């Protein structure tokens, strides 16, 4: 990401040097005995930290208006503190008033621009959150997202289940586990890359077919979990059956060849009660029993026409 912002970084570094040369050329070096070390550390440290924040921010953001505002703001604060720090080393004669102006303009201007940047950052973040509905609820944990499907993983699901269980006052929610039949055969015949694409397709399908408050997670492998807050058993069963039917209707076209792969899935659901780990254990066992009932024959087969 940093390479995107080379100009910003070069300009900021050049401004730091410029301020240094201004002070060094127009001012007189103060005798070392009169240096105020506490001020130097305080002001220099502030400049240094602002620089670190600037690099950290730029390394994580694409270019754009919000990024520019944040850059100008942080760079301004950094320059203000830097000028303040130079002030401790160089004495400028009274005819120079620009140094006070420089400090004030950088610090105040930087602060205001940063505030504007954060304001727009907030708006931007709220609109980005829209993209994450149905993928996260109530709290964020960036480590919990799966690389293939961009869904939250089992750890996140367990935390959500615990939150649901702790929330004793409200109506209990329900949980669905969905498992794709014969997914191993897709991996075997088309490769794991194609398997990943199937998981991504199923992810999209599930996200399109649940309510705004529901949460879709990738439990592990080809097993998905859907958490339905404040939903009774009958509604949950209907939702599970609907999702199963949607998966049965979908056709996945592998990258190589035009023969679609049809999918099918089986599901189990339960009201969220008791203990999160025990609930998941029970559901997994029931799902396994549901799978072995059909003889486990490979069901993900190419359609013949």
């Amino acid at each position: 990401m940093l390479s995107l912002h080379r100009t910003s970084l070069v300009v900021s570094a050049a401004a730091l040097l410029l301020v240094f040369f201004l002070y060094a050329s127009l001012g007189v070096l103060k005798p070392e005995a009169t240096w105020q070390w506490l001020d130097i550390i305080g002001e220099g440290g502030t400049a240094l930290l602002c620089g670190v924040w600037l690099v950290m921010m730029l390394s994580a953001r694409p270019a754009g208006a919000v990024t520019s505002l944040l850059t100008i703001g942080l760079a301004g604060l950094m320059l203000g503190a830097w000028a303040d720090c130079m002030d401790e080393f160089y004495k400028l004669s009274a005819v120079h008033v620009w140094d006070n102006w420089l400090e004030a303009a950088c610090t105040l201007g930087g602060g205001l621009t940063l505030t504007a940047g954060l304001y727009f950052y907030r708006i931007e973040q709220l609109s980005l959150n829209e993209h994450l509905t149905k993928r996260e609820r109530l709290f964020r944990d960036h480590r919990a997202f799966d690389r293939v499907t961009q869904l939250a993983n089992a750890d996140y699901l367990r935390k959500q289940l615990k939150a649901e269980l702790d929330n004793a006052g409200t109506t209990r929610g329900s949980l669905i586990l969905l498992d794709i039949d014969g997914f191993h055969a897709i991996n075997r015949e088309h490769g794991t890359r194609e398997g990943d694409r199937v998981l991504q397709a199923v992810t999209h399908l599930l996200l399109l077919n649940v309510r705004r408050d529901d949460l879709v997670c990738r439990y592990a492998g080809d097993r998905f979990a859907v958490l339905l807050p404040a939903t009774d058993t009958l509604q949950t069963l209907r939702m599970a059956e609907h999702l199963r039917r949607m998966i049965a209707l979908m056709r996945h076209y592998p990258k190589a060849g035009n023969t679609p792969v049809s999918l099918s899935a089986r599901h189990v659901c339960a009201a969220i009660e008791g203990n999160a780990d025990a609930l998941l254990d029970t559901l997994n066992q029931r799902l396994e029993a549901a799978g072995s009932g059909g003889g486990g024959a490979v069901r993900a087969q190419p359609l013949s026409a």
Partner: protein
Amino acid sequence: MHEYCHASSAFISCQHQPALVYDHARSADIAAAALLADCGLNEAAMSDPATRLSPAQVMRLVSNAARALGAPDTSFMLGQQMLPGHYGAVSHALIQATSLREALTILSTHHATLTPLLRPRLMTDGPFAVLYWTDTFGTPSLRPFLVEMHLTAVAAMTRWLSGERLPWHFCFNRAKPRHAEQHAVHLGTALRFECQLDAQLIDIDCLDRPWPRGNRVAMAAALRTADAELLAEPGRSSLLSVLYDYLHARITAAPTLEESARDLGISPATLKRHLALHGTHFQAELDQVRTHVSIYLLQVRHCDNEQVARHLGFHDAKNFRRSFRRWTGITPTLMRNTLLPAN
């Protein structure tokens, strides 16, 4: 003189297990440089079919891939693709296997080609067939990963070839992980931890059920080629593997380091040094074999402590009980039921 190879002997074709690991990570956009770091290899070498890797290089590649991918399911995904694999005639033989017994027998015989990093060992004389995995080149830090990978490999292969999800039970010689969702989804919920043995068990009746894809004639032909290849290239078993076999065959006589070295055709000092290179020592290897034999006698043969003690050359059951506790941390009585499924 038994020939054996070292962790540094380059005998694994880069198109076998290394290609599997390499391609899996590369398809997830992991840089080749990150995968091959400290392997002593470059991209050109990996695409040259003549390149052979040592077990140490393969293990480095595996741990590089696991770290770079950072996914909780890497071991299981690699396992799913590992068998029958594309390892020449022996892979063809596996695909044509007509029953689980045949597949597992081929696997045990051709372990150096099929699973060079862990050695499968098959026991079929109880109510359950037991396939357990022992170290070949000593990899304590990678061991849990390799075990997950190999257990999955056999489960996935047999599921594919038999056309059904076989009722495997899995035992792990490790503490129960806090959460085992990957295990549960990829292997099923018949999981046991803290078992003293990394093994997979299956009802003995499953061994001889005919498999739909099998073809005895084709299998025999492929197997002849594979056996000839095996004979043409002896000494691909690891020291730990060879020593295990030796100790296992003579366990009642309580072999010493000196005797073992003599029978392996090397000096005791060399044996000690070679074991140290694998991060182990003679007593640890002997204790491991004794533990495995005890588990077999206690659980499969239903012997009592007295009988096991006699078999292993102990003076009495009390001595055996004390030693067993030292090897495993638990008493033989507690041990009696840890491997076999509850019912």
